[in-house]
Protein backbone atom coordinates (compact mmCIF):
# COMPACT_ATOMS: atom_id res chain seq x y z
CA UNK A 1 0.00 0.00 0.00
CA UNK A 2 2.84 2.36 0.91
CA UNK A 3 4.44 1.57 -2.45
CA UNK A 4 1.25 2.47 -4.30
CA UNK A 5 0.92 5.68 -2.31
CA UNK A 6 4.44 6.67 -3.40
CA UNK A 7 3.65 5.79 -7.01
CA UNK A 8 0.46 7.87 -6.91
CA UNK A 9 2.36 10.83 -5.44
CA UNK A 10 4.94 10.62 -8.23
CA UNK A 11 2.14 10.33 -10.81
CA UNK A 12 0.56 13.45 -9.32
CA UNK A 13 3.85 15.20 -10.04
CA UNK A 14 3.34 13.99 -13.64
CA UNK A 15 6.10 11.42 -13.56
CA UNK A 16 5.47 9.35 -16.75
CA UNK A 17 7.00 6.21 -15.29
CA UNK A 18 4.77 6.35 -12.20
CA UNK A 19 1.61 6.94 -14.20
CA UNK A 20 2.70 4.17 -16.56
CA UNK A 21 2.97 1.82 -13.59
CA UNK A 22 -0.55 2.67 -12.43
CA UNK A 23 -1.78 2.26 -15.99
CA UNK A 24 -0.25 -1.20 -16.38
CA UNK A 25 -1.56 -2.28 -13.02
CA UNK A 26 -5.16 -1.24 -13.57
CA UNK A 27 -5.78 -1.19 -17.32
CA UNK A 28 -7.00 -4.76 -17.81
CA UNK A 29 -9.25 -4.70 -14.75
CA UNK A 30 -10.88 -1.43 -15.79
CA UNK A 31 -11.37 -2.69 -19.34
CA UNK A 32 -12.96 -5.94 -18.16
CA UNK A 33 -15.28 -4.12 -15.76
CA UNK A 34 -16.40 -1.76 -18.53
CA UNK A 35 -16.85 -4.43 -21.18
CA UNK A 36 -19.10 -6.39 -18.85
CA UNK A 37 -21.16 -3.28 -18.09
CA UNK A 38 -21.53 -2.01 -21.67
CA UNK A 39 -21.53 -5.38 -23.47
CA UNK A 40 -19.64 -4.07 -26.45
CA UNK A 41 -15.89 -4.16 -26.97
CA UNK A 42 -15.66 -1.07 -29.18
CA UNK A 43 -17.61 1.03 -26.66
CA UNK A 44 -15.53 -0.47 -23.87
CA UNK A 45 -12.35 0.64 -25.60
CA UNK A 46 -13.61 4.20 -25.96
CA UNK A 47 -14.70 4.36 -22.33
CA UNK A 48 -11.49 2.77 -21.02
CA UNK A 49 -9.51 5.35 -22.93
CA UNK A 50 -11.62 8.13 -21.38
CA UNK A 51 -11.17 6.71 -17.89
CA UNK A 52 -7.38 6.91 -18.11
CA UNK A 53 -7.39 10.32 -19.76
CA UNK A 54 -9.70 11.61 -17.02
CA UNK A 55 -7.54 9.98 -14.38
CA UNK A 56 -4.52 11.74 -15.85
CA UNK A 57 -6.38 15.03 -15.87
CA UNK A 58 -7.71 14.75 -12.31
CA UNK A 59 -5.07 12.74 -10.49
CA UNK A 60 -3.99 15.89 -8.68
CA UNK A 61 -7.33 15.95 -6.87
CA UNK A 62 -6.98 12.39 -5.56
CA UNK A 63 -6.30 12.08 -1.82
CA UNK A 64 -6.00 8.80 0.04
CA UNK A 65 -8.41 9.56 2.90
CA UNK A 66 -9.30 5.91 3.17
CA UNK A 67 -10.09 5.43 -0.50
CA UNK A 68 -7.63 3.12 -2.30
CA UNK A 69 -6.47 4.34 -5.71
CA UNK A 70 -8.24 1.40 -7.41
CA UNK A 71 -11.56 2.50 -5.90
CA UNK A 72 -11.00 6.06 -7.12
CA UNK A 73 -10.23 4.83 -10.63
CA UNK A 74 -13.20 2.46 -10.68
CA UNK A 75 -15.45 5.29 -9.56
CA UNK A 76 -14.39 7.21 -12.67
CA UNK A 77 -15.10 4.08 -14.72
CA UNK A 78 -18.49 3.68 -13.04
CA UNK A 79 -19.40 7.28 -13.89
CA UNK A 80 -18.34 6.73 -17.49
CA UNK A 81 -20.57 3.67 -17.71
CA UNK A 82 -23.52 5.55 -16.20
CA UNK A 83 -23.06 8.41 -18.70
CA UNK A 84 -22.77 5.90 -21.52
CA UNK A 85 -26.10 4.29 -20.66
CA UNK A 86 -27.76 7.67 -20.24
CA UNK A 87 -26.71 8.53 -23.78
CA UNK A 88 -27.79 5.13 -25.03
CA UNK A 89 -31.16 5.35 -23.36
CA UNK A 90 -31.78 8.45 -25.41
CA UNK A 91 -31.10 6.25 -28.41
CA UNK A 92 -33.74 3.83 -27.14
CA UNK A 93 -31.69 0.86 -26.06
CA UNK A 94 -33.40 -2.39 -26.81
CA UNK A 95 -33.74 -4.51 -23.70
CA UNK A 96 -33.19 -8.22 -23.98
CA UNK A 97 -36.31 -10.32 -23.97
CA UNK A 98 -36.43 -13.69 -22.25
CA UNK A 99 -36.10 -15.42 -25.63
CA UNK A 100 -33.08 -13.38 -26.55
CA UNK A 101 -31.56 -14.20 -23.18
CA UNK A 102 -31.96 -17.88 -23.95
CA UNK A 103 -30.41 -17.31 -27.34
CA UNK A 104 -27.55 -15.37 -25.77
CA UNK A 105 -26.73 -18.64 -24.14
CA UNK A 106 -28.22 -19.64 -20.84
CA UNK A 107 -26.35 -22.85 -20.09
CA UNK A 108 -28.17 -26.13 -20.30
CA UNK A 109 -29.19 -27.82 -17.08
CA UNK A 110 -28.79 -31.42 -18.14
CA UNK A 111 -25.32 -31.73 -16.69
CA UNK A 112 -24.76 -31.25 -12.96
CA UNK A 113 -21.32 -29.75 -13.51
CA UNK A 114 -22.50 -27.55 -16.37
CA UNK A 115 -20.91 -24.34 -15.16
CA UNK A 116 -17.58 -26.00 -14.65
CA UNK A 117 -17.56 -27.84 -17.94
CA UNK A 118 -19.23 -25.48 -20.37
CA UNK A 119 -17.19 -22.41 -20.92
CA UNK A 120 -19.22 -19.38 -20.04
CA UNK A 121 -18.44 -16.49 -22.37
CA UNK A 122 -18.38 -12.85 -21.29
CA UNK A 123 -21.33 -12.12 -23.57
CA UNK A 124 -23.39 -14.76 -21.77
CA UNK A 125 -22.34 -13.43 -18.41
CA UNK A 126 -23.14 -9.85 -19.44
CA UNK A 127 -26.54 -10.92 -20.76
CA UNK A 128 -27.26 -12.78 -17.52
CA UNK A 129 -26.20 -9.74 -15.49
CA UNK A 130 -28.89 -7.73 -17.27
CA UNK A 131 -31.44 -9.61 -15.17
CA UNK A 132 -29.85 -8.51 -11.91
CA UNK A 133 -30.63 -5.31 -10.05
CA UNK A 134 -28.25 -2.36 -10.58
CA UNK A 135 -26.51 -2.99 -7.27
CA UNK A 136 -26.13 -6.72 -7.84
CA UNK A 137 -24.77 -6.16 -11.36
CA UNK A 138 -22.31 -3.59 -10.06
CA UNK A 139 -21.03 -5.94 -7.37
CA UNK A 140 -20.54 -8.79 -9.85
CA UNK A 141 -18.76 -6.48 -12.30
CA UNK A 142 -16.49 -4.91 -9.70
CA UNK A 143 -15.67 -8.15 -7.85
CA UNK A 144 -15.22 -10.57 -10.73
CA UNK A 145 -14.36 -8.46 -13.75
CA UNK A 146 -12.62 -5.64 -11.88
CA UNK A 147 -11.02 -7.96 -9.34
CA UNK A 148 -11.74 -5.58 -6.44
CA UNK A 149 -11.89 -6.72 -2.84
CA UNK A 150 -15.12 -6.34 -0.86
CA UNK A 151 -13.62 -3.30 0.88
CA UNK A 152 -12.67 -1.64 -2.43
CA UNK A 153 -16.06 -2.48 -3.95
CA UNK A 154 -17.76 -0.92 -0.94
CA UNK A 155 -15.77 2.30 -1.45
CA UNK A 156 -16.69 2.51 -5.14
CA UNK A 157 -20.36 1.92 -4.42
CA UNK A 158 -20.50 4.08 -1.31
CA UNK A 159 -21.88 1.18 0.71
CA UNK A 160 -20.87 -0.74 3.82
CA UNK A 161 -18.89 -3.95 3.38
CA UNK A 162 -21.74 -5.94 4.94
CA UNK A 163 -24.16 -4.59 2.34
CA UNK A 164 -21.76 -5.53 -0.47
CA UNK A 165 -21.52 -9.09 0.89
CA UNK A 166 -25.30 -9.38 0.97
CA UNK A 167 -25.59 -8.07 -2.59
CA UNK A 168 -22.85 -10.48 -3.70
CA UNK A 169 -24.65 -13.44 -2.11
CA UNK A 170 -28.02 -12.61 -3.67
CA UNK A 171 -26.43 -11.81 -7.05
CA UNK A 172 -24.59 -15.13 -7.21
CA UNK A 173 -27.74 -17.05 -6.29
CA UNK A 174 -29.68 -15.25 -8.99
CA UNK A 175 -26.90 -15.63 -11.57
CA UNK A 176 -26.78 -19.34 -10.94
CA UNK A 177 -30.49 -19.65 -11.56
CA UNK A 178 -30.26 -17.56 -14.73
CA UNK A 179 -27.33 -19.54 -16.09
CA UNK A 180 -28.82 -22.90 -15.11
CA UNK A 181 -32.55 -22.31 -15.40
CA UNK A 182 -33.60 -25.89 -14.62
CA UNK A 183 -31.76 -26.00 -11.32
CA UNK A 184 -34.49 -24.45 -9.22
CA UNK A 185 -31.99 -23.43 -6.56
CA UNK A 186 -31.91 -26.80 -4.86
CA UNK A 187 -28.48 -26.12 -3.51
CA UNK A 188 -28.87 -22.51 -2.92
Amino acid sequence: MQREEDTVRRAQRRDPEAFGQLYEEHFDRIYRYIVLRVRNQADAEDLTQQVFLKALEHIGSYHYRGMPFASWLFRIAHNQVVDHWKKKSREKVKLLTQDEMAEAGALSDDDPAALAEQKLGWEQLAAACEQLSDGQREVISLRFAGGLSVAETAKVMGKREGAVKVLQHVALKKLRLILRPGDGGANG
Partner: protein
Amino acid sequence: MAERFEDILSECIDRVLQGESVEQCLARYPEQAGELEPLLRTAVAAREASAVESRPEFKAQVRYQIHSRLSAGGRKTAQKGMPVLGWVPRWAVVVAVMFLVILLAGSSTVAASSTSMPDDTLYPVKLATENVRLRLNRTNMGKARLHVALVDRRIQEIAYLARKGDAERVERIASRLAAHLDAVRRLIELEAGKPGRQQAISDLKELLEERVRSNEALLLQLGEGNGSSSGMVNRILERYRQGWQRVLGLAGGSNG
Protein backbone atom coordinates in the same frame (compact mmCIF):
# COMPACT_ATOMS: atom_id res chain seq x y z
CA MET B 1 -26.62 -16.51 10.90
CA ALA B 2 -27.31 -15.02 7.47
CA GLU B 3 -24.55 -12.46 7.99
CA ARG B 4 -22.13 -15.19 8.96
CA PHE B 5 -22.80 -17.20 5.80
CA GLU B 6 -22.15 -14.09 3.71
CA ASP B 7 -18.82 -13.59 5.47
CA ILE B 8 -17.87 -17.21 4.80
CA LEU B 9 -18.93 -16.93 1.18
CA SER B 10 -16.88 -13.77 0.76
CA GLU B 11 -13.82 -15.32 2.33
CA CYS B 12 -14.12 -18.45 0.17
CA ILE B 13 -14.55 -16.36 -2.99
CA ASP B 14 -11.37 -14.44 -2.17
CA ARG B 15 -9.51 -17.71 -1.56
CA VAL B 16 -10.76 -19.31 -4.78
CA LEU B 17 -9.90 -16.22 -6.79
CA GLN B 18 -6.41 -16.39 -5.30
CA GLY B 19 -6.01 -19.91 -6.67
CA GLU B 20 -7.33 -22.19 -3.94
CA SER B 21 -9.60 -24.94 -5.24
CA VAL B 22 -13.34 -24.95 -4.53
CA GLU B 23 -12.90 -28.31 -2.79
CA GLN B 24 -10.27 -26.91 -0.42
CA CYS B 25 -12.64 -24.11 0.52
CA LEU B 26 -15.54 -26.48 1.05
CA ALA B 27 -13.37 -28.60 3.33
CA ARG B 28 -12.90 -25.56 5.58
CA TYR B 29 -16.65 -25.18 6.02
CA PRO B 30 -18.20 -28.64 5.78
CA GLU B 31 -21.49 -27.49 7.36
CA GLN B 32 -22.02 -24.82 4.74
CA ALA B 33 -20.53 -26.82 1.86
CA GLY B 34 -23.89 -27.66 0.25
CA GLU B 35 -24.88 -24.02 0.02
CA LEU B 36 -21.39 -22.76 -0.74
CA GLU B 37 -20.48 -25.04 -3.62
CA PRO B 38 -22.90 -23.83 -6.33
CA LEU B 39 -22.21 -20.21 -5.43
CA LEU B 40 -18.44 -20.69 -5.55
CA ARG B 41 -18.67 -22.47 -8.90
CA THR B 42 -20.78 -19.61 -10.23
CA ALA B 43 -18.19 -17.15 -8.89
CA VAL B 44 -15.36 -19.04 -10.61
CA ALA B 45 -17.32 -19.17 -13.88
CA ALA B 46 -18.03 -15.43 -13.63
CA ARG B 47 -14.38 -14.65 -13.02
CA GLU B 48 -13.22 -16.82 -15.92
CA ALA B 49 -15.86 -15.44 -18.28
CA SER B 50 -15.01 -11.85 -17.47
CA ALA B 51 -11.26 -12.30 -18.03
CA VAL B 52 -11.72 -10.83 -21.50
CA GLU B 53 -8.65 -9.34 -23.13
CA SER B 54 -8.39 -5.98 -24.77
CA ARG B 55 -6.46 -5.77 -28.03
CA PRO B 56 -2.76 -5.25 -27.26
CA GLU B 57 -2.54 -2.57 -29.94
CA PHE B 58 -5.39 -0.67 -28.27
CA LYS B 59 -3.59 -0.83 -24.96
CA ALA B 60 -0.42 0.41 -26.64
CA GLN B 61 -2.38 3.21 -28.30
CA VAL B 62 -3.77 4.54 -24.99
CA ARG B 63 -0.36 4.20 -23.37
CA TYR B 64 1.09 6.28 -26.18
CA GLN B 65 -1.60 8.96 -25.76
CA ILE B 66 -0.96 9.22 -22.04
CA HIS B 67 2.77 9.38 -22.57
CA SER B 68 2.32 12.10 -25.18
CA ARG B 69 0.23 14.19 -22.82
CA LEU B 70 2.67 13.78 -19.98
CA SER B 71 5.58 14.64 -22.25
CA ALA B 72 3.73 17.70 -23.48
CA GLY B 73 3.81 19.02 -19.92
CA GLY B 74 0.25 18.09 -19.07
CA ARG B 75 -1.42 20.53 -21.41
CA LYS B 76 -5.12 19.89 -21.32
CA THR B 77 -6.20 18.43 -24.61
CA ALA B 78 -8.93 16.17 -23.34
CA GLN B 79 -11.68 17.65 -25.46
CA LYS B 80 -9.61 17.43 -28.59
CA GLY B 81 -9.27 13.67 -28.66
CA MET B 82 -5.95 12.20 -29.70
CA PRO B 83 -3.25 14.85 -29.43
CA VAL B 84 -1.02 13.69 -32.25
CA LEU B 85 -3.14 11.35 -34.30
CA GLY B 86 -6.14 13.72 -34.45
CA TRP B 87 -9.36 12.57 -36.04
CA VAL B 88 -7.92 9.63 -37.87
CA PRO B 89 -10.38 6.73 -38.28
CA ARG B 90 -10.15 4.12 -35.51
CA TRP B 91 -9.02 1.30 -37.80
CA ALA B 92 -6.23 3.43 -39.22
CA VAL B 93 -4.99 4.33 -35.74
CA VAL B 94 -5.01 0.69 -34.73
CA VAL B 95 -3.09 -0.44 -37.80
CA ALA B 96 -0.65 2.44 -37.53
CA VAL B 97 0.06 1.84 -33.86
CA MET B 98 0.46 -1.89 -34.40
CA PHE B 99 3.02 -1.41 -37.14
CA LEU B 100 4.69 1.43 -35.27
CA VAL B 101 5.15 -0.81 -32.27
CA ILE B 102 6.71 -3.51 -34.37
CA LEU B 103 8.66 -1.54 -36.94
CA LEU B 104 9.81 1.55 -35.08
CA ALA B 105 10.64 -0.35 -31.93
CA GLY B 106 13.29 -2.08 -33.97
CA SER B 107 13.87 -5.72 -34.71
CA SER B 108 16.02 -6.22 -31.63
CA THR B 109 13.12 -5.12 -29.41
CA VAL B 110 10.76 -7.43 -31.24
CA ALA B 111 13.26 -10.29 -30.89
CA ALA B 112 13.72 -9.56 -27.19
CA SER B 113 9.95 -9.41 -26.71
CA SER B 114 9.49 -12.95 -28.03
CA THR B 115 10.74 -14.39 -24.75
CA SER B 116 9.07 -11.79 -22.54
CA MET B 117 6.56 -12.85 -19.91
CA PRO B 118 3.18 -11.25 -19.11
CA ASP B 119 4.62 -9.12 -16.33
CA ASP B 120 7.40 -7.73 -18.58
CA THR B 121 7.30 -4.32 -20.23
CA LEU B 122 7.88 -5.89 -23.65
CA TYR B 123 4.97 -8.31 -23.39
CA PRO B 124 2.51 -6.10 -25.34
CA VAL B 125 5.09 -6.01 -28.16
CA LYS B 126 5.16 -9.81 -28.13
CA LEU B 127 1.36 -9.96 -28.45
CA ALA B 128 1.25 -7.31 -31.15
CA THR B 129 3.93 -9.21 -33.09
CA GLU B 130 1.90 -12.41 -32.81
CA ASN B 131 -1.19 -10.61 -34.10
CA VAL B 132 0.69 -9.27 -37.09
CA ARG B 133 2.11 -12.71 -37.86
CA LEU B 134 -1.39 -14.18 -37.75
CA ARG B 135 -2.77 -11.46 -40.01
CA LEU B 136 0.06 -11.81 -42.50
CA ASN B 137 -0.41 -15.55 -42.72
CA ARG B 138 -2.48 -16.18 -45.84
CA THR B 139 -3.61 -19.78 -45.42
CA ASN B 140 -5.95 -21.33 -42.88
CA MET B 141 -3.54 -24.19 -42.19
CA GLY B 142 -0.65 -21.76 -41.77
CA LYS B 143 -2.71 -19.77 -39.27
CA ALA B 144 -3.71 -22.97 -37.46
CA ARG B 145 -0.05 -24.05 -37.14
CA LEU B 146 0.83 -20.65 -35.77
CA HIS B 147 -1.98 -20.83 -33.21
CA VAL B 148 -0.65 -24.23 -32.13
CA ALA B 149 2.79 -22.70 -31.60
CA LEU B 150 1.22 -19.85 -29.65
CA VAL B 151 -0.55 -22.35 -27.40
CA ASP B 152 2.92 -23.53 -26.35
CA ARG B 153 3.88 -19.96 -25.50
CA ARG B 154 0.74 -19.45 -23.43
CA ILE B 155 1.42 -22.68 -21.51
CA GLN B 156 4.95 -21.50 -20.73
CA GLU B 157 3.55 -18.19 -19.53
CA ILE B 158 0.95 -19.91 -17.34
CA ALA B 159 3.67 -22.06 -15.80
CA TYR B 160 5.81 -19.00 -15.13
CA LEU B 161 2.93 -17.05 -13.54
CA ALA B 162 1.62 -20.01 -11.52
CA ARG B 163 5.09 -20.44 -10.00
CA LYS B 164 4.87 -16.79 -8.95
CA GLY B 165 1.34 -17.30 -7.61
CA ASP B 166 -0.09 -14.60 -9.90
CA ALA B 167 -3.65 -15.96 -10.15
CA GLU B 168 -5.11 -12.93 -11.92
CA ARG B 169 -2.67 -13.03 -14.82
CA VAL B 170 -2.93 -16.83 -15.03
CA GLU B 171 -6.69 -16.48 -15.65
CA ARG B 172 -6.05 -13.91 -18.33
CA ILE B 173 -3.51 -16.05 -20.15
CA ALA B 174 -5.79 -19.09 -19.80
CA SER B 175 -8.45 -17.12 -21.72
CA ARG B 176 -5.95 -16.39 -24.46
CA LEU B 177 -5.01 -20.07 -24.51
CA ALA B 178 -8.67 -21.02 -24.96
CA ALA B 179 -8.98 -18.46 -27.76
CA HIS B 180 -6.03 -20.06 -29.62
CA LEU B 181 -7.61 -23.50 -29.27
CA ASP B 182 -10.95 -22.19 -30.54
CA ALA B 183 -9.18 -20.61 -33.49
CA VAL B 184 -7.44 -23.91 -34.38
CA ARG B 185 -10.78 -25.70 -34.20
CA ARG B 186 -12.52 -23.15 -36.43
CA LEU B 187 -9.71 -23.16 -38.98
CA ILE B 188 -9.69 -26.95 -39.22
CA GLU B 189 -13.45 -26.86 -39.61
CA LEU B 190 -13.06 -24.48 -42.54
CA GLU B 191 -10.44 -26.67 -44.18
CA ALA B 192 -12.15 -29.99 -43.56
CA GLY B 193 -14.80 -29.30 -46.17
CA LYS B 194 -12.26 -28.67 -48.94
CA PRO B 195 -10.95 -31.42 -51.20
CA GLY B 196 -7.32 -32.57 -50.88
CA ARG B 197 -6.77 -31.17 -47.38
CA GLN B 198 -6.81 -34.45 -45.49
CA GLN B 199 -3.03 -34.87 -45.44
CA ALA B 200 -2.47 -31.36 -44.11
CA ILE B 201 -5.14 -31.88 -41.44
CA SER B 202 -3.64 -35.20 -40.49
CA ASP B 203 -0.18 -33.61 -40.16
CA LEU B 204 -1.62 -30.90 -37.96
CA LYS B 205 -3.31 -33.55 -35.83
CA GLU B 206 0.04 -35.24 -35.26
CA LEU B 207 1.58 -31.95 -34.27
CA LEU B 208 -1.29 -31.33 -31.83
CA GLU B 209 -0.96 -34.73 -30.20
CA GLU B 210 2.77 -34.25 -29.72
CA ARG B 211 2.23 -30.85 -28.10
CA VAL B 212 -0.56 -32.14 -25.84
CA ARG B 213 1.77 -34.70 -24.30
CA SER B 214 4.50 -32.26 -23.35
CA ASN B 215 2.18 -29.44 -22.30
CA GLU B 216 0.01 -31.70 -20.16
CA ALA B 217 3.09 -33.12 -18.49
CA LEU B 218 4.23 -29.61 -17.60
CA LEU B 219 0.83 -28.59 -16.20
CA LEU B 220 0.45 -31.86 -14.29
CA GLN B 221 3.84 -31.42 -12.69
CA LEU B 222 2.95 -27.84 -11.81
CA GLY B 223 -0.46 -28.80 -10.41
CA GLU B 224 1.04 -31.45 -8.17
CA GLY B 225 3.81 -29.40 -6.70
CA ASN B 226 2.59 -25.85 -6.57
CA GLY B 227 0.94 -25.48 -3.15
CA SER B 228 -1.81 -22.88 -3.08
CA SER B 229 -1.85 -22.49 -6.88
CA SER B 230 -2.49 -26.18 -7.51
CA GLY B 231 -6.29 -25.77 -7.66
CA MET B 232 -5.96 -23.03 -10.22
CA VAL B 233 -3.46 -24.99 -12.34
CA ASN B 234 -5.62 -28.11 -12.24
CA ARG B 235 -8.66 -26.11 -13.40
CA ILE B 236 -6.65 -24.76 -16.30
CA LEU B 237 -5.35 -28.24 -17.14
CA GLU B 238 -8.95 -29.44 -17.28
CA ARG B 239 -9.99 -26.60 -19.60
CA TYR B 240 -6.90 -27.21 -21.73
CA ARG B 241 -7.80 -30.89 -22.08
CA GLN B 242 -11.34 -30.08 -23.08
CA GLY B 243 -10.07 -27.59 -25.65
CA TRP B 244 -7.66 -30.04 -27.23
CA GLN B 245 -10.20 -32.82 -27.21
CA ARG B 246 -12.61 -30.63 -29.15
CA VAL B 247 -9.89 -29.85 -31.68
CA LEU B 248 -8.72 -33.45 -32.02
CA GLY B 249 -12.29 -34.64 -32.33
CA LEU B 250 -12.71 -32.30 -35.26
CA ALA B 251 -9.43 -33.46 -36.76
CA GLY B 252 -10.78 -37.00 -36.66
CA GLY B 253 -8.23 -38.29 -34.19
CA SER B 254 -8.19 -39.98 -30.83
CA ASN B 255 -9.01 -37.74 -27.94
CA GLY B 256 -5.62 -38.08 -26.48
